[in-house]
């Protein structure tokens, strides 16, 4: 199984694949059902859909299974699959005012019109290992659900039926306290999957790149800005998680709008302090916007922070430099490139050696160079 054994490559690849398959199967347990991953690893599935840029829970679960739980690899599988799909339609802009809410909080106001809804969160639970899950009883597992749904807490479920909440940031807008970023006409939206990003980037391109960004990279950059490299001190105007309808104009009759389905989104509107841009600065709060597929609050907060930090007129910190941020947050690109160093580079290395020896020959012994 040599690495670049001349004439051995073909066989080596096949054997390596078989060996990897063996490592996936050898544990003597039953195969995981994709459905189980989809149901019980929902946050991993959401993350993979977000980074993969494709809303397909079952495929994302399959990708996770195939990738043995590596979310980056799974997102890559999904992305590669989606790039073969033709673009038949672009959906209409989806307003999150119409979101079917399952969670909604604001850290800017104690009370908000419509009320705060914690929804499914573990924010306030203690992070203790749940040892009972080591041997989870499948009967108890199922009966919890039936009891929960049939239980005496109708408002828990009816919340999901609540049609519409006013948006918190609209309150600030009405008062003229919020500076909105310039609005692009939907007709001018570029498609990141069809065009290379250019700088200065349009906001629609920025947001698309951020929405597909890799969790960890975005978090690190956003955190650097919150911590002191740059100065975004965010306040979460509103964070909502819920389902949004996808609407597409009828291909034959564009006046007819068809609902093609709904997607689960996490959306964050972050309000940051006013910006001082010298004379003529207006005393207004500024907005950072984050949205991503599925339930992924940290990513949405990181995205909103970066959306805001990249508006700095004179970038001073990495998180303020749109080139720096947008070129380095794509997990598929960065992971692929980092991994490519495993490929043979002996032609290049030989060329380097040749140069080095040439310099050494001219300047004498290698020691003299130090």
């Amino acid at each position, binding site marked *: 199984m040599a690495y*670049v054994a001349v004439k051995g*490559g073909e066989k080596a690849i096949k054997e390596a694949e078989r060996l990897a398959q063996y490592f996936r199967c050898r544990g003597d347990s039953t195969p995981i059902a994709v459905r189980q991953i989809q149901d019980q690893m929902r946050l991993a599935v959401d993350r993979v859909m977000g980074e993969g840029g494709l809303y397909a829970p079952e495929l994302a679960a399959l990708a996770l299974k195939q990738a043995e739980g590596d979310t980056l690899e799974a997102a890559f599988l999904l992305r590669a699959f989606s790039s073969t799909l033709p673009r038949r339609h672009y959906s209409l802009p989806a307003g999150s005012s119409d979101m079917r809410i399952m969670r909604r909080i604001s850290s800017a106001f104690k009370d908000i019109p419509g009320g705060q809804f914690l929804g499914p969160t573990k924010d306030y639970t203690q992070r203790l290992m749940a040892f009972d899950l080591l041997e989870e009883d499948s009967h108890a597992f199922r009966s919890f659900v039936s009891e929960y749904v049939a239980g005496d807490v109708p408002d828990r479920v009816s919340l999901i039926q609540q049609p519409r909440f006013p948006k918190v940031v609209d309150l600030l807008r009405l008062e003229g306290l919020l500076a909105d970023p310039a609005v692009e006409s939907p007709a001018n939206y570029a498609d990141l999957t069809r*065009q290379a990003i250019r700088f200065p980037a349009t906001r629609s391109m920025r947001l698309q790149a951020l929405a597909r960004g890799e969790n960890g990279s975005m978090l690190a950059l956003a955190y650097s800005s919150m911590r002191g490299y740059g100065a975004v001190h965010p306040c979460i105007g509103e964070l909502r998680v819920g389902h949004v309808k996808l609407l597409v104009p009828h291909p034959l009759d564009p006046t007819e709008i068809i609902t093609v389905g709904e997607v689960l989104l996490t959306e964050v509107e972050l309000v940051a302090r006013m910006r001082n841009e010298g004379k003529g600065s207006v005393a207004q709060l500024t907005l950072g916007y984050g949205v991503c597929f599925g339930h992924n609050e940290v990513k949405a907060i990181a995205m909103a922070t970066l959306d805001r930090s990249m508006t700095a007129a004179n970038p001073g910190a990495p998180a303020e430099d749109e080139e720096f941020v947008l070129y380095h947050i794509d997990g598929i690109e960065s992971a*692929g490139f980092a*991994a*490519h160093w495993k*490929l043979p580079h002996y*032609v290049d290395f030989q060329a380097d050696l040749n*140069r080095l020896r040439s310099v050494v020959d001219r300047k004498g012994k290698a020691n003299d160079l130090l």
Partner: protein
Amino acid sequence: MTSYSYNYGFLDEQTKKEIRRKLLQAVAIPGYQVPYGSREMPIARGWGTGGLQITLSIIGKQDTLKVIDQGCDFSVNACNLRNFIAATTGNTVTTDTAEASIVQTRHRIPEEAMREDQILVFQVPYPEILRWVEPSERETRRMHAERDYGKLWVFLYEDIVRWGEITLSYRYPVLVNQRYAMDPSPIPRHDVPKLHQAETLFLFGAGREKRLYAVPPYTEVVPLQFEDYHFTIENFGGQPCRSCGSTSSYLNEVYDGETGERYFSCSDTSHCAKNSRGAIRHE
């Protein structure tokens, strides 16, 4: 594997058309980097997705394909790419440079001179030669637009000050058609002169960085050099290839796995085999 679920050449026809249009633009402005909507491929970013997208966009049923990595047809990544292209097109593959109509390569130009009816597709990790001296894309675009290559030249000047020669070994900067500074991809210096006034069309694809560029046949391609510090290619001290005895090809330094002895052998393996058989015509 015969692929039923994917289009011929994996990519959909719209995508191929888009890439071909961008290639035309690249050919029309030699050395200029054309941004394009690079697609995610089923191989990882950084592993040749740019070259692969070009090959899949230009390949037709009559084409014969050769894929090399570091000069070798059988290194794992070359095998993987060749298998993928063959599986999604059903085209004939070869290891003989002379037989191929399209050669996809990583880091080498084949030793055997290529002809007008052939195309060489390069996999490119860094399309931007100015990245040696400038990290910002906005700034390098401006520098190209204004033909402002001073920073790169000073970099070469300071290299001579420090080391007595230009120490860039691969990715050696070239000036194309007296206009654009270009990254020839990480080919060794040995291969750089082959770009100049060549009979073959050279296409360059950087998938991760989403850029395409080209050197059309019979184009001037000159390495950046000072009048009194000439560009030179690698020198193997007259050592021949241990397999075929060639002293003119690019060599790899190899340590014998058993004896630990160091020897040299051709990086272009199919050329080496052909040469050993006496099948290379020496002019």
